[in-house]
């Protein structure tokens, strides 16, 4: 049961882990859903062509980095509103993946199955990547100069700038890190969990990851723990179905969302997020 929860929560956890870094730098990445979706598609398509799931993972990460860089260009370089750009990115990714998918694989809805990554026990390698990445991210954010600078650029960008860092560069770097993890998340979804692709297959997991960052109060460890809990709800849903428990199916699907909303309401104002989250930085010359 625990392994299953871990397995099903891995996409959300990976995406949320990257999103913590991005949000700490002041980047609210509403386009996360779209980045994950594009990665899931790229991962599937590359694996289908080459029959090598590792190349699929690579393609997924590259696609995610590309779209994240695109998004970062608009939100950081051009200092456009992050919610606006993120919304556009989501639309773009939805249209792009749907069109490419239908153009390449037809609309018949026939199931495409692709080889998955070799499993280690019950888990696949990307789960271990997640487990290794958590302490790494915690350490980087807490102990390194770069981590401190990133946090500063999300709290009080002028301070980071006057300490000799470039806020634009810091935010760009963290946006790419967020993109990297979103790529792994998408790859895990299509290559490891589904072994296939379906239109709009992320089904809100990117948004859920953003909610998890708030839920986990911008602390990488807590964020992943929260994702695990919510992912557990998803595993529970399959388990309950298998055991024939008669709960409305829809309630189970909605459970992760209800759970996160309730927790956010209960936690209330508590610890706030980074002070400059979502605020485009314009250098005062």
């Amino acid at each position, binding site marked *: 049961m625990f392994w299953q929860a871990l397995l099903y929560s891995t996409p959300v956890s990976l995406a949320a882990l990257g999103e913590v870094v991005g949000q700490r730098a002041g980047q*609210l990445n*509403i386009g996360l859903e779209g980045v994950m979706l594009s990665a899931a598609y790229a991962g599937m398509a590359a694996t289908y062509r080459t029959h090598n799931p590792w190349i699929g993972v690579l393609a997924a990460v590259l696609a995610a980095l590309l779209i994240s860089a695109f998004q970062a260009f*608009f939100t950081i370089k*051009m*200092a*456009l*509103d992050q*919610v*606006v*750009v993120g*919304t*556009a*990115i989501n*639309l*773009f990714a*939805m*249209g*792009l993946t*749907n*069109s490419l998918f*239908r*153009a390449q694989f037809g609309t018949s809805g026939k199931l495409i199955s692709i080889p998955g990554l070799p499993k280690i026990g019950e888990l696949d390698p990307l789960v271990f990547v997640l487990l290794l990445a958590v302490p790494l991210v915690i350490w980087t954010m807490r102990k390194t100069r770069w981590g401190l600078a990133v946090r500063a650029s999300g709290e009080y960008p002028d301070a980071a700038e006057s300490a000799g860092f470039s806020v634009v560069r810091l935010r760009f770097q963290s946006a790419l890190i967020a993109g990297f993890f979103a790529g792994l998340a998408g790859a895990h979804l299509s290559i490891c969990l589904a072994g296939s692709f379906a239109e709009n297959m992320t089904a*809100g997991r990117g*948004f859920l990851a*953003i*909610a998890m960052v*708030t839920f986990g109060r911008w602390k990488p460890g807590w964020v992943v723990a929260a994702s695990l809990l919510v992912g557990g709800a998803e595993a529970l849903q399959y388990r309950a179905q298998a055991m024939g428990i008669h709960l*409305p*199916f*829809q*309630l189970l*699907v*909605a459970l992760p*969302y*209800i759970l*996160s*909303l309730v927790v*956010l*309401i209960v936690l*209330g*104002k*508590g610890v*706030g*997020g980074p002070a400059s989250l979502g605020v485009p930085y314009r250098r005062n010359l």
Partner: protein
Amino acid sequence: MILTFLIFGLPVGSSFRLIAEGAFSDKIAISRTLVAMTPMLLTGIGMTFAWRAGMYNIGGEGQFICGGLAGAALFQAVPSAPSWLLLLATCIGGMLIAVFAGWLQIKRGVPLVISTILLNFIALQFLDWACAGPLKDPVGGVPLSKRLPETSMLLRFDRQTDLHSGTVYALVIAALAYIFLFLTPEGFRIRLVGQNTRVARSNRMKPNQIQLGAMAISGALCGLAGGIEYVGISGQIGTSFSQNWGFLAIPVALLGSLHPLGVIASALYFGALFAGCNNLARYSSAQNSIIYIMQAVAVLIVVALGQWSRQRETKVHNE
């Protein structure tokens, strides 16, 4: 748009022709455009109210669904309810969920961006459950609510087309929204709170109240959009009741630069794209999902151009 054609290797000229034909060539095409425009116009105006007040409402989809649900629930309870009463119920349905999200942000500090997204998913599952359970039509096996009788539906202008009086209502509401936002003190307060909360507060306004009010209007309009779709077109609601009309509200509102008159134009443009792209998909290898790409690109270009001209202005100003 041309860019999109090129990316997918479509012939630019004939693609344009197919889209234009699908959107404007005859009575049926034009009515398709207008029918697609209607929900986007209402939700787009709804978003305009919220975003103008500085409330990032992303919950258009959830509010649209709750509107439809409230209407269907009223019909279930009171089968003789006239269409205006059903529409009122849909307004209230959308309003309640939007005000709830606004209240969460103001009182409990839950970011609106996140709560509205979560509520979208919850509303979607709730719709699923309601259509398969309490609201399900006992006749027939598909998860759809009971069909409205003809007498409760909105007036149709022509038997051949789906065009209904809801389109006229939407246009009237858009005009009223313009008057309200730009020509009344209440509208001025909404815009001021969105632009500078501090100035608003120092002028003894209550930003929280005004923002909640804007969310209420926003939710009511999105709910009404759901209602008009229900009472005007479908007559029943099912799992796929909202075809992303609530999500599309944001690009529509942004492309209309958050101005009701601009939103009329952008909703019309998107409506034409919808009708046109369906035509394009029928007669060429293109998929109608390329419409999302066109919309995304259009929004990015518009906001980027806006920003660019603003930056130039400040530069000139500084010199």
